[in-house]
């Protein structure tokens, strides 16, 4: 009996030390992993969080006379994001110019995302259903625009749609129109430019999702009396939802902050948020307002993401 107990306690001791060793190893493992993410943390800290903090601080300071800031606390900049004092009678008004730019940014980005999805989905579906050895070629073709500078691509669009551009001259030569159609320097031209620039960002994540899609599920859908549209809505779309979310986010967010495209194709008349921010840091010489507008843009993106992710989660429980 006594012997048995000794043996048991021996066993308990060795078991505990084994557990300790395991815990220690795990501890070491975690420390090693932290070490591995350090470069990423440094980059995020220095290149993203730090500047962001500076922008946040600047938005609560007074503007300097020739740009820059005066280190006095002020909420003027935030006030000026949506409101303004009338030049003559000092009454409070909504800052129509800012609001319309804000609205245009959200509207054009949203429409660009919707159009990119509408055009990108069939494209990605087409590529994903090609024989495996053909797919790299199609993907390569989709990514070719990435190889060219953004500015050059934007000027190329300009060349196509301007009043003396390819489309208008062709239509006039064909006798279909007399006056050139004004396409350049409109919201349409900005949207077209963004659609062209951000299109691959929609196609690639969609393709990644569609490529993983088990097409036997599609067949099972057809087998169970679902029409093509029902298969798309009830089976394919729910299953590739991660790709749709990723693609939409990848298009919507850079579209909101787009600068070059609205600058070139909007002609300085149709501003988007990115241009407005640039204006404040440049000619406007109002750094705090620029900073406040930047933070506003960031908040719009975060709200949009939250709404989107919420909706997706909700529709998923509905499906499931």
């Amino acid at each position, binding site marked *: 009996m006594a012997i048995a107990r000794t043996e048991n306690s021996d066993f308990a001791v060795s078991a505990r030390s084994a557990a300790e060793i395991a815990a220690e190893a795990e501890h070491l493992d975690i420390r090693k992993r932290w070490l591995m993410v350090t470069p990423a943390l440094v980059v995020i800290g220095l290149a993203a969080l730090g500047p962001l903090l500076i922008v946040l601080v600047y938005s609560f300071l007074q503007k300097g006379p020739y740009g820059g800031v005066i280190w006095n606390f002020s909420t003027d900049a935030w006030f000026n994001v949506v409101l303004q004092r009338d030049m003559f009678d000092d009454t409070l008004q909504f800052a129509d110019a800012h609001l319309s730019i804000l609205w245009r940014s959200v509207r054009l980005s949203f429409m660009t995302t919707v159009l990119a999805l509408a055009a990108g989905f069939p494209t990605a579906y087409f590529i994903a259903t090609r024989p495996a050895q053909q797919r790299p070629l199609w993907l390569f073709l989709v990514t070719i625009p990435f190889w060219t500078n953004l500015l050059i691509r934007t000027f190329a669009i300009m060349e196509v749609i301007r009043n003396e551009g390819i489309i208008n001259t062709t239509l006039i030569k064909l006798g279909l129109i007399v006056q050139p159609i004004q396409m350049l320097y409109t919201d349409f031209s900005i949207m077209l430019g963004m659609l062209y620039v951000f299109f691959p960002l929609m196609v690639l994540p969609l393709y990644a999702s569609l490529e993983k899609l088990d097409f*036997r*599920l599609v*067949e*099972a859908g*057809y*087998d*169970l*009396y679902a029409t093509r549209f029902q298969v798309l809505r009830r089976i394919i779309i729910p299953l590739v939802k991660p790709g749709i979310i990723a693609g939409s986010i990848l298009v919507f967010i850079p579209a909101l902050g787009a600068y070059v495209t609205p600058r070139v194709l909007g002609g300085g008349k149709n501003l988007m948020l990115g241009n407005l921010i640039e204006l404040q840091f440049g000619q406007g010489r109002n750094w705090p307002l620029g900073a406040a507008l930047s933070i506003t843009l960031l908040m719009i993106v975060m709200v949009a993401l939250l709404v989107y992710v919420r909706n997706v989660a909700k529709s*998923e429980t509905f499906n*499931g």
Partner: protein
Amino acid sequence: MLAAKNKVFPGRHELRAAGKAGAGAGKESAGATVAVEAIGVSKIFGQNDDRVVALDKVHVAIRQNEFFTLLGPSGCGKTTLLRLIAGFDHPTEGHILLHGEDISALPPFKRPVNTVFQNYALFPHMTVAGNIGFGLEMLGKPRAEIDARVDEMLKLVQMSELKNRQTSQISGGQQQRVALARALAPSPQVLLLDEPLSALDLKLRKEMQIELKRLQHETGITFIFVTHDQEEALTMSDRVAVMDQGRILQIGAPRDIYDRPAERFVANFIGDTNFLEAELLSARKGADQVKLPSGKAVAASLPDGFSGSAGRKITIVVRPEHAEVVARPASGLLAGTLGNIVYFGTDTHYHVELDTGGEFIVRMQNLRGSEIGHAVGDKVGIAFKSDAVQVLKD
């Protein structure tokens, strides 16, 4: 014989296909209604140099309420035929009829036919109930009817308690049952099963074999079952079609297929068998005689469509369990030396080296007191009844 009745007569079908396909209202000679009929169906994948003939002018008539099995090795075209019936692919040539109506051009969602897929293909974003109700939902049935039918189906496959589980949270065997329930829920006229048991372990497979048979009996739906497992085919089917290289070699009841294989491939693919070279003595129906390698003559049955007259060299098959080892070489139909004795528990295999060359395996059941007093090296005879001898076409 049954085999004769079940034979497909290409000539007749060609006539039907040439006339109005739907007008025939598919009656078989036995009087049973034909559920699915393939008339001269070919399927060719690829073009020119990459051409693969998956199906080569297949004719088959599958009866109403029948458990019909397409049996063959992988790549024999059995799944292709199933996919043509389901509508996932369309025949390059020929017609598929469902109750006499040509459905060759219809998309799958317009065919009252459902499929149980090899890997089940359950929708991962839906619950068990969502999967089972999907077909009815797509048919636009009212919610109450769908719910009632889903409950009924869950009861049928004994899955009621897992109704609201995600399909990823249930075992392979349970997924199999959900796939069955999903395919049966819309009350299809024909249920297609594409190797549905291949992913299950042996014990579960045996259970599901019985389960499938029960379901078929209870629902009265025509089952078309694809498998490469001969045992599965023999135990479950009313009739079996043996396929190889895109052709149907033989159609018949499991017993006919096993006892009366018409071709070498069929005899070889299903069960163990002994092949013997022989010579046809008389080809008169009912008085067929063949000369065995040993010189002795024995009555044999000729397969349908056999051609050849007396003197033709033929191959005959004798199943190991249809023969027995006898003590005196002279009293058997064949004679040889006992080369090996392999004990299997329920039966024993005797490998006999024939005096005329080649090996003949005899399988004898180990009944009490039936042990033969032979040892390896003994001279023995092999006896079999004349109805054990089957002549092959090729």
